[in-house]
């Protein structure tokens, strides 16, 4: 090309696609033995979507049971299994895999790499995650429970000792929980190591750390959190297994062991885990919002600094889950200030997204709709988080439905919304077909209404004294009406998810052709074909700024002049 200052290798592969003749079995086998980061990414996401449906189904039964007071739809035993498995599924079997899957697909493309740093480890990580999830669900059949048939874990997803000790959980339920999560932990550790190594060692020429797309940056931070936090959980679960199988006393309160130690260990893992789920959503928002506002992200260095800051802070706030266990005044005070400090980098992020939208020319495509809803809901979830961080008020709110509402505001209102946005945003890249916009908007509005019906009203029974983890309540407590509204909302959300599934099926068959760059976007993944070839880029790209495709599209006003 004539223009010598073109900053990126604008090259497409024109190799003829020789569609190899494959039988169905060969096609299937390829998915099992693949080491391609894109295929593994798809596997992760599909696997997680299946468990999203399963976990969602569990949530629906929970909501049905609570819809009216004194309900006898399910027994307490089954209810306890439902909320434990719902929580465990949504955090470990759905949440982390779907985000790791997105990262798997997108990160190498965004940094202009041909694959992850360790492609085989990548496959290994996925299969560990997958088998771990299957092992967890095998407990429904093979748990050797008290009553002869299988029992799933039934002690809440944070599994407080000594409820998990042999004396109080005589079946195999805690063993399934611990072992399956240890297996999945290996997978997450592998994924973390892989993503870190990929981002640090596989970037294309010119892509300095401060030019990495924000999603990649956030996944780098998240991977560090995974690598540090997941082994903490593995260690705690290892101790639990030592207690249960070879008679150790780590959490055996009869022998001087401490129930509080488990809480500390669990939440040292558990709070970073929350950010492991939330930070990728911030990354997704930081990719999608600029593209649909048609502006560069506002304050990129501040965004990076805030992400890293949240990462560091996340290791110093775990005991805000434990304000009620009777810690000393100074300890409580420390965790109050640490937790509130998290609000500052998160605030910076919200303001930066807002400033990115400000003065833009907003294109309300489905991904943008989900992203705007995300900002609103994340704002509310963050503010209820500040309320919970004020320890004395937390003494009231802790373990109440207010907390349930708060964390679902983050987990659903922020994270699931952004995952949906990401699905609409990258589906064209992954499949070459656009998702249907009209179905997408239907999905968005249904899900938005359902979400707010469920989780807005969930705050109120919390304030009216409804604790979490109860399978029923008495009519005189006055929680019935709110719970009924929540249940209705849950079903609206379920319908919305079915619309998404329908949309995916329909669009795969007869969606509009996407082309390389349907959103007129700026990061490197849009500089290759859709779907990308196995090697991503035929020629290694070279970048000079954070928005290489902007530079290509606007040679008179490229970013690298100003960054």
């Amino acid at each position, binding site marked *: 090309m004539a223009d010598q200052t073109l900053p990126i290798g604008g090259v497409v592969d024109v190799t003829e696609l020789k569609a190899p003749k494959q039988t169905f079995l060969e096609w299937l086998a390829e998915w099992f033995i693949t080491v391609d980061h894109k295929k593994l990414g798809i596997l992760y996401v599909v696997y997680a979507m299946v468990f999203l449906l399963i976990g969602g189904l569990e949530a629906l039964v929970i909501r049905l049971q609570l819809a009216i007071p004194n309900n006898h739809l399910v027994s307490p035993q089954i209810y306890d299994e439902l909320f434990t498995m719902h929580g465990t599924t949504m955090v470990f079997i759905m949440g982390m895999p779907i985000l790791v899957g997105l990262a798997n697909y997108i990160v190498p493309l965004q940094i202009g790499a041909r694959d992850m740093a360790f492609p085989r480890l990548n496959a290994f990580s996925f299969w560990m995650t997958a088998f771990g999830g299957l092992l967890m669900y095998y407990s429904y059949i093979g748990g050797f429970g008290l009553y002869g048939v299988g029992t799933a874990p039934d002690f809440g997803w944070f599994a407080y000792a000594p409820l998990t000790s042999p004396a109080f959980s005589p079946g195999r339920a805690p063993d399934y929980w611990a072992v399956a999560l240890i297996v999945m932990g290996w997978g997450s550790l592998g994924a973390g190591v892989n993503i870190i190594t990929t981002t*640090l060692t596989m970037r294309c*020429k010119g892509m300095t750390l401060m030019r990495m797309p924000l999603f990649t940056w956030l996944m780098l931070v998240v991977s560090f959190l995974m*690598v540090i936090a997941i082994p903490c959980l*593995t260690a*705690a679960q290892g101790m639990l297994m030592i207690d249960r199988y070879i008679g*150790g006393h780590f959490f055996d309160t009869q022998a001087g062991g401490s129930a509080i*130690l488990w809480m500390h260990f669990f939440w040292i893992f558990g709070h970073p885990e929350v950010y492991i789920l939330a930070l990728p959503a911030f990354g997704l928002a930081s990719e999608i919002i600029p593209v649909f506002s048609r502006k560069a992200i506002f304050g990129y260095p501040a965004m990076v600094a805030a992400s890293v800051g949240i990462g560091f802070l996340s290791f110093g706030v775990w005991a805000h889950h434990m304000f009620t266990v009777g810690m000393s005044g100074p300890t409580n005070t420390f965790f109050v200030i640490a937790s509130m400090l998290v609000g500052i980098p998160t605030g910076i992020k919200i303001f930066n997204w807002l400033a990115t939208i400000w003065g833009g020319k907003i294109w309300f495509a489905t991904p943008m709709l989900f992203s705007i809803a995300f900002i609103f809901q994340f704002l509310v979830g963050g503010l209820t988080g500040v309320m919970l961080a004020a320890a004395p008020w937390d003494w009231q709110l802790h373990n109440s439905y207010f907390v349930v509402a708060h964390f679902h505001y983050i987990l659903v209102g922020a994270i699931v919304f952004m995952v949906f946005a990401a699905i609409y945003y990258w589906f064209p890249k992954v499949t070459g077909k656009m998702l249907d916009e009209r179905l997408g908007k239907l999905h968005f509005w249904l899900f938005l209404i359902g979400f707010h019906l469920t989780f807005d009203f969930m705050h109120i029974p919390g304030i009216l004294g409804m604790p979490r983890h109860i399978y029923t309540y008495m009519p005189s407590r006055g929680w019935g009406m709110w719970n009924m509204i929540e249940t209705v909302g849950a079903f609206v959300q379920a319908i919305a998810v079915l619309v998404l599934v329908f949309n995916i099926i329909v669009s795969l068959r007869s969606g509009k052709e996407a082309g390389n760059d349907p959103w007129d976007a700026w990061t490197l993944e849009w500089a290759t074909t859709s779907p990308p070839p196995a090697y991503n880029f035929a020629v290694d790209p070279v970048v000079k700024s954070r928005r290489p495709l902007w530079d290509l599209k606007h040679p008179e006003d490229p970013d690298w002049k100003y960054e």
Partner: protein
Amino acid sequence: MASIPVIQSQQEHFEEWQLPDRGKVGMLTLILGESALFSMFVLAYIFYIGKSISGPQPAQVLDIPVFMTICLWSSSFTIWLAERAIEHGKMKIFAGFWALTIALGAIFLGGTALEWKRLIYHDGLTITTNLFGTTFYSLVGLHASHVVVGLIMLITVLILTLTGHVKQEHAHRIKTLALYWHFVDAVWVIVFTVVYVLGR
């Protein structure tokens, strides 16, 4: 903030586009995760120091394992010598120091085995005895299991060396593996301090 300059001279940048070594970064990240794993067990050990309801207590039964500690720590030195040897292509010296490292590691493991045998059969301390037993065997056992994994990898390399498969060009892989061994040694510094010095 937003005005931090992020562009360095483009020209130089492209020519010196150097990124860290994959294997090294991967191994360091793995070591980071392993450190978190160990720190949980170390924290549990520290938390339960002196909280055992019944005996035996650490001071009654633990002796400072001077000899095996020296062996393990010096193995870090010998593996470093081996690394240097392979970098310069001196394969015989490499094999020698590599074998010496394995021997030192094996002595350490043997020492641990003897210590455990004495504790179990002579002092009657098992993992079920009390909190000290639980935390001690878990922590030291976790470390020992890492030594075992390390030894298996070292022995594999030794076999490959003796059959002539390891050459000078594999030096960076060898160094990556050696990093793991250094880590195992470094963990012993912590375990040794906590179990045999502070906790006794």
